[in-house]
Each structure stands twice: as structure tokens, then as C-alpha cells.
């Protein structure tokens, strides 16, 4: 019983990272209709920035989150404004190919800069945690979940209350109508992608504290972002939160509690979930109708 509770809790905590990875991906997909294959690359840029700030300036990974987010926002804004805006009206696989190309460039530039050595961010409290009635709660993971939920709240609040957030939602709902009432599409697109990239950066910071990073360590996260967003549904921040936490729990339970399945099955489980949800309920658990 304790084992089950432990795995449930661990799944929820791991789900925090998935929430953080999913928010930016979902925003960009929902508003810009872009499936951003460079998302994992942006995540890993965030992880490397966190590592740089930690190893060079001894800045705590959780304190450096705003710096990393700001840097990634800038990268994302420029990327969208200069490149992706150019193909936004093209057939959909053009944006897939373009963002795939951007991802290739990101990974290989990181390889040139940092080699493929494993890097990790290890503040003094990493490895320790709380124990509640026999259930282990690693500090890193608990803080990660808290940051992810804060991020989700901040993005939801920003979209619902701010003027720019309103413009972003308007563009997502109807591009041409938004332009008619005076929204500067190029700018709002770039802002949206920048915010998505900033979220990816936050996720990268969380990931750098939980695992060793390499230039290609972001790849699984692009794929997991798909699963989270499809599972929860597109168009709502709360859907991504539910999708991310649920995915964390299902993945952890399937790997540890089902006999015959192990870590080697992680991807197979994730994509089986993805394909089944798409075939049965394409809008996800709580997304708007497709």
C-alpha cells in the first residue's frame, strides 16, 4: 500500500515537469497552430543556461528561473519574428519541417559549445527530501511541481486578465478578425512564441536539477509534450495541468506496478496513450472540440 502511495506521489511530482514542458507547447499550438518540434531544443537551452549560471556564478537553479525565462523569451521572439512568421500561412508540415530544422541547429550548436558531456546542477539540497509516513518527497521534485503550478497560474492569469493576453486569445480564436480590430499579428505571434519559449526555459531549469543534461536530452520532452497536450486537450492551461499530472502518474504506475513492463517501455506507453486518445477522443480530456 505504501508502495502504491509512494508511486502515486512520485508520479504527481514527475508530472510537474510535464506540466511545465506542456504549457508553452500548448500555447504555441493553440494560438499559432504551430506544432513546435524545436520545443525540446528550447527546453534544453534553458537547462544549459541554468547550468551555466549555477556553475559559473553559483546562482541557485530556482533563483535563476526568471533570468532563464527572460533569455528564452528573447530567443523565442526573434525566432518567430524572423523565421516562423514566414511560413505561418503555408501547409502545416512546412512549420513542422521548419521547427525540426531549428531544432537540429539548436542541438548541434549546443554540441559545438558544450560537447556531449553530461552536465548536472547539484545544489546542496539535491538528493535530500522529506519523509511523510514512509512516503519520500524529494525537495527538488516538490519545488519543481510548485514552480510548474505557479507557472501555469501565471500564464492563465496573464491570458485572462492582461491586454496582451486578450490579444493573444483573439488571434487564437480568429486571426483575420483580430487583425481587423487592430491587432499587430507579427508582434503578437512573436510575443506568443516568446512566452512559449520562456515556459520551455522554466521547464529546462527544472529538468537540469532532476537529471543530467546533454544537447540531445530535450528530444524526449518534445514527444512527451505531445502526449501531455493531446491527453489534456488544447486551448486551456488547466487542461495541460491535468494532462501533465495524469501522464506523470500513469507513466510511473505503468512502469513500476505492471509486471513485465519496465523503464524500457516508457516511450511505448506514452505513445500508446497518445494514439488511443487521438483515435477515441481527439479533443483530449477537457480541450475545446477539434
Amino acid at each position, binding site marked *: 500500500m505504501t508502495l502504491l502511495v509512494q508511486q502515486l506521489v512520485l508520479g504527481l511530482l514527475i508530472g510537474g515537469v510535464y506540466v511545465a514542458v506542456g504549457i508553452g507547447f500548448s500555447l504555441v*499550438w493553440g494560438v499559432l*497552430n504551430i*506544432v513546435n518540434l524545436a520545443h525540446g531544443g528550447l527546453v534544453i537551452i534553458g537547462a544549459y543556461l541554468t547550468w551555466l549560471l549555477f556553475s559559473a556564478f553559483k546562482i541557485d537553479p530556482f533563483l535563476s528561473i526568471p533570468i532563464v525565462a527572460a533569455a528564452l523569451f528573447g530567443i523565442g521572439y526573434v525566432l518567430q519574428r524572423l*523565421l516562423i*512568421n*514566414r*511560413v*505561418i*500561412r*503555408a*501547409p*502545416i*508540415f*512546412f512549420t*513542422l*519541417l*521548419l521547427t*525540426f*530544422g*531549428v*531544432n*537540429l*541547429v539548436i*542541438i*548541434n*550548436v549546443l*554540441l*559545438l559549445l558544450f560537447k556531449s558531456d553530461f552536465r548536472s546542477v547539484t545544489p546542496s539540497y539535491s538528493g535530500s527530501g522529506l519523509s511523510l509516513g514512509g512516503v519520500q518527497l524529494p525537495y527538488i521534485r516538490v519545488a519543481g511541481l510548485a514552480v510548474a503550478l505557479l507557472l501555469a497560474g501565471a500564464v492563465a492569469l496573464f491570458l485572462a486578465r492582461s491586454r496582451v493576453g486578450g490579444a493573444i486569445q483573439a488571434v487564437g480564436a480568429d*486571426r483575420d478578425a483580430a487583425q481587423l480590430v487592430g491587432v499587430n*499579428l*507579427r508582434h503578437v*505571434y512573436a510575443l506568443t512564441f516568446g512566452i512559449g519559449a520562456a515556459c520551455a526555459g522554466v521547464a529546462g531549469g527544472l529538468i537540469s536539477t532532476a537529471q543530467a543534461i546533454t544537447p540531445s536530452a530535450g528530444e524526449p520532452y518534445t*514527444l512527451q509534450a*505531445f*502526449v501531455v497536450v*493531446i491527453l489534456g486537450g488544447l486551448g486551456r492551461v488547466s487542461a495541460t495541468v491535468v494532462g501533465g499530472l495524469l501522464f506523470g502518474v500513469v507513466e510511473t504506475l505503468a512502469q513500476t506496478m505492471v509486471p513485465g513492463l519496465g523503464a*524500457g*517501455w516508457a*516511450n*511505448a506507453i*506514452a*505513445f*500508446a496513450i*497518445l*494514439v488511443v486518445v*487521438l*483515435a477515441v477522443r*481527439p479533443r483530449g480530456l477537457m480541450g475545446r472540440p*477539434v
Partner: protein
Amino acid sequence: MPGSPGGSFSTRPDAGGRRLRRVLLAVFAVAVLLVLIAPLSTTDQADSLGLPVLVDKSQIRILTTIAMFVVMATAWNLVGGLTGYGAFGNVAFFGLGAYACAVLVDPHKLHLPMLAGIALAPIVPIAFAVLVGLPLLRLRSHYFSIATLGTAVAVGEVVKNVEYLGGANGLFPPIVRRGDLLFLYLMVAVAAIAVGSVYLVLRSRFGYGLIAIRENEDAAAVLGVNTTLYKVAAFALAAGLTGLAGAVFAVWNSFINQELGFSLDFNIQMILMAVVGGAGTLFGPVLGAILLELLLQALAGQGTVAVYAQIGLGLLLAVTVIFVPRGLVDFFGGSSRLSLGYLRRTLRETSV
């Protein structure tokens, strides 16, 4: 508004354009023929006649690889180019065909003759395409792309975990001694079958139905096109062709594992080739496969060179999708000429 590749871009060449197109096709055909005859100079018969050896083994290998990508890009074009469904996981068919063939010819499993194994292998990817095509082809735009990508990754992961299929080690079909030429011509034959199939499809009721689905699926359905049947048939045909290439690859390479059979690099390369050449056209994917594979071979290297090559490939991707979305075929025989004005126009069409 280019809601789909190919169709809305199509141009009607004038008389001069048509003549140019014929000349170019003839030159192209002669070049292909010469390249395909040259490897015969490596045979013993040619040697005994005292003929010079025109190509070496590594070049034959490159030619076989090009033919393999011609098949994959052409097959992708059936779904992505003609039908307008952005399939993003066709490599699943390649891997399934390769694994099926490996199981069929394995002396410890079914132990069929090699050619029988190759001929029967596509049944597996075709059956798989029908099975997943029925639910997934109801999805549109990104949802279909993501679902197909997910399917490809999931199948690869499952295959890797199945003991019977060699697990992570993969399978080892028997090595065919001195098989370079045999596999070159086998792969070229498969490429010819693929291009021939698309040629026939383009001129049939089936092909017009697919294009109608791409341009407006609801309208096509109203006009009496059985959209589900047509889409699944196109998907299955693409699966069969890609699986056939996979089957030949398995025995040619005499080794297949998850990373080779379900390679995400292959997955993206076949799409890139079709788009660079010209999605929705007959020869675009062929041209794209030849040019891109030659480029990839030229860039291939170890260590830092490979890293720069990958960066170059990424930039090439970006430049291609931004500036030549209609593909290179548009310049040859189409009414377009490559010019600054052309680049500016295509850029404006797709930008915000």
C-alpha cells in the same frame, strides 16, 4: 492561399515550357540510364572483356540508398502531397516491412527464399496501415501528423521490446555474398514500381479523388468520392511501397534494429525530399531524393564535421520551406523562373 501543397501552386506550362520540360525529362532519363548501366562494369564478365571499372562499391551503395529514398519520398507524396494529409510517421511502414522480411527469411524462423520474403513482407505494413488508417485518417491537420508520428515511435518501441524480434539487438538476415549489384537493381526496380504507381494513380479516377480530398474533403464527399476508402487506400499503397523498400533494405544491410528500421532521420528526410523536389508532382520527390541524398553523402563525416553538416541541414530546411515551398520542380517545365521576384512572391504568400 496555399492551403495544400501542389494543387493551388499548379501552373499550366505554355508551349515553350512543355518543350523545355520534354528536353529536360529526356536528359534526365538518359542520365539515370547511364548511371544504372555503369555498375555493370564491376561484374566479372565486364572484367574479362577488359572494360574499365566505372564505379566502386561505395558508389553502388550510394546509388542503392538514393533509390531507397526515391521510393520513400514518392510513397510519402501519395499521402502528404496528393491527398494533403501530413503523414509524419511513414518510417513505421519501412520498419515493419524490414522486420517482416527479416522474420520471413530468417533460417530459425520462417526460412523462406529471399525474394519470396521481400515479396510477402509488405503485407504487414499494408495491414497495419489499414488498421491504424481507419481511426487516424479521420483526424485532420496537426492531429493526423502527431498521431502518425506517435504511431511510428510507439511501434518502434514495441518492436524493441519483443524478444522474438531480437529485442534491442535486432535481427540479422543471412548475408548475401557479392550482392551489391543485385540489391542495387532490386531497389531500383522498387523505385520504378513506386514512380509507376504514382504515375498510374495520377491518371486515374482514384488520383482525381485524392486531389479532390486535398482541395476540399467535404466537397469531394458531396460529389460522391468515398473519402474514407480513398484515404485508407492511398495510405495502404504508401505503406506497401515503403514496406517493400524496407524489406529490400533488411536483406541488403543484413541487419535491422529499431534505430535503423524506425529511424526518425529517415522519417524526416523522406518528407524533406518530397517537399524540396515538389510535393504533389510525379518527379518532384524523385528529384528531391537524388539531390538531397547526394548532398547528405557529400556532407557526411565524423566528429565536428558531422555537427556542422547537421547545422547546414537545419539551415537548408529553413531556407527551403521559406523560399521554395513549391519545390524545385516548379522551375523546370513550370512557368516559373528562379528569380528574386519569385522568391519574394512565395515569401509573401506564406507570411503574416
